[in-house]
């Protein structure tokens, strides 16, 4: 097993003692199969126990270890050291306030996610005895890719619009609203439209497309947002030009 010495530059911030973040460099002996998260764990275990960062699954499922690696939003568990030069800079996710070191404050995203009601709102209540809500493979395929979102917030870190206009609902929240709107079992679109078709919703998006480029699960939130724009525009025309047509 080959070993390589890496200079890991980490942006540190301690809210109790620091007025602003500062870079701290650690020299880490890395194995070829290591990801950046392994290097951070090495630092935590062997060099500096005060380093704070979030992680859990180490397999790109939990969405906890999102951070900026050489300026790119990445999952630290999916960023292989061997794909980088000997110096790697690690910073907290862009566009979010820094809580401590690599830990960001994510309350804004959580509140936005909740506001789009990202859960099934059945068209009609059905007693359990009436059985399950059935769906064909074709109906499932229509929204399946959006179910792969792991709420890692890389898309928010990549989105310049979210950075410039913090009120923007953002990629993942709208993509998840779209996921449920596209679900044949769901009847909650009207409730979600009030939030996602607003100015702070989909119309704040200018289709930079960065969200989809950085998404580690290939959800393509940018695509979802453009589809919501088209559907909302059709709604508007129906409402204003053909008021007799029901949605």
């Amino acid at each position: 097993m080959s070993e390589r010495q890496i200079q890991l530059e980490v942006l540190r911030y301690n809210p109790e003692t620091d007025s602003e973040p500062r870079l701290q460099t650690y020299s880490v002996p890395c194995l070829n199969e290591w990801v950046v998260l392994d290097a951070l764990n090495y630092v935590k275990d062997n060099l500096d126990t005060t380093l704070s960062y979030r992680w859990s699954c180490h397999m790109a499922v939990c969405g906890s270890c999102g951070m900026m690696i050489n300026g790119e939003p990445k999952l630290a568990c999916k960023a292989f050291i061997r794909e980088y030069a000997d110096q790697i800079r690690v910073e907290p996710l862009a566009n979010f306030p820094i809580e401590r070191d690599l830990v960001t404050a994510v309350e804004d995203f959580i509140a936005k996610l909740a506001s789009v009601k990202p859960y099934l709102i059945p068209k009609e209540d059905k007693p359990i005895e009436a059985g399950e809500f059935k769906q064909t493979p074709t109906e499932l395929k229509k929204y399946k890719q959006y179910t792969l979102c792991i709420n890692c917030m890389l898309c928010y870190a990549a989105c310049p619009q979210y950075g410039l206009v913090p009120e923007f609902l953002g990629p993942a929240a709208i993509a998840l609203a779209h996921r449920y709107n596209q679900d044949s079992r769901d009847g909650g679109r009207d409730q979600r439209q009030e939030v996602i078709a607003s100015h702070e919703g989909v119309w704040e998006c200018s289709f930079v497309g960065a969200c989809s480029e950085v998404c580690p699960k290939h959800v393509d939130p940018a695509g979802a947002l453009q589809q919501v724009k088209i559907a909302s525009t059709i709604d508007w025309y129906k409402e204003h030009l053909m008021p007799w047509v029901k949605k």
Partner: protein
Amino acid sequence: MGEEMSSKPYIREISKTNWFYGQPRYMRYMAREVTCIFIFAYTFLLIWALRALANGPEAYQAFLAALNSPLGILFNLAVLVGVVYHSISWFSLTPQAMPLQRGEEFVPGNLIIGAHYGGWAVVSLIVLFLGV
């Protein structure tokens, strides 16, 4: 929610004017957006052409002479490059905005992009036909 937040979260400021500099991804986006100015500029040329037509044959000949001048040709070339870049960059995004599902599969993105180029060719041919 919120009670665990530190009393002093650090907010990194983003420049309102040059946030896209040095970021290839954002520069590509700006190039796509900025090239719409060429379309805007060309509409002025068309309005100028209409005005020259309305002002009689001499005015129209003067307009044509201006078009044939090196500056006129340079302007048209610049517009052509800008508009082609603008169109290509937008066409390449169409599969994301307009996915087509047939049965359990989605139509390949290249087909959707290709259909846009096809439509572009047809419209160009109609314009060419009307102009000859």
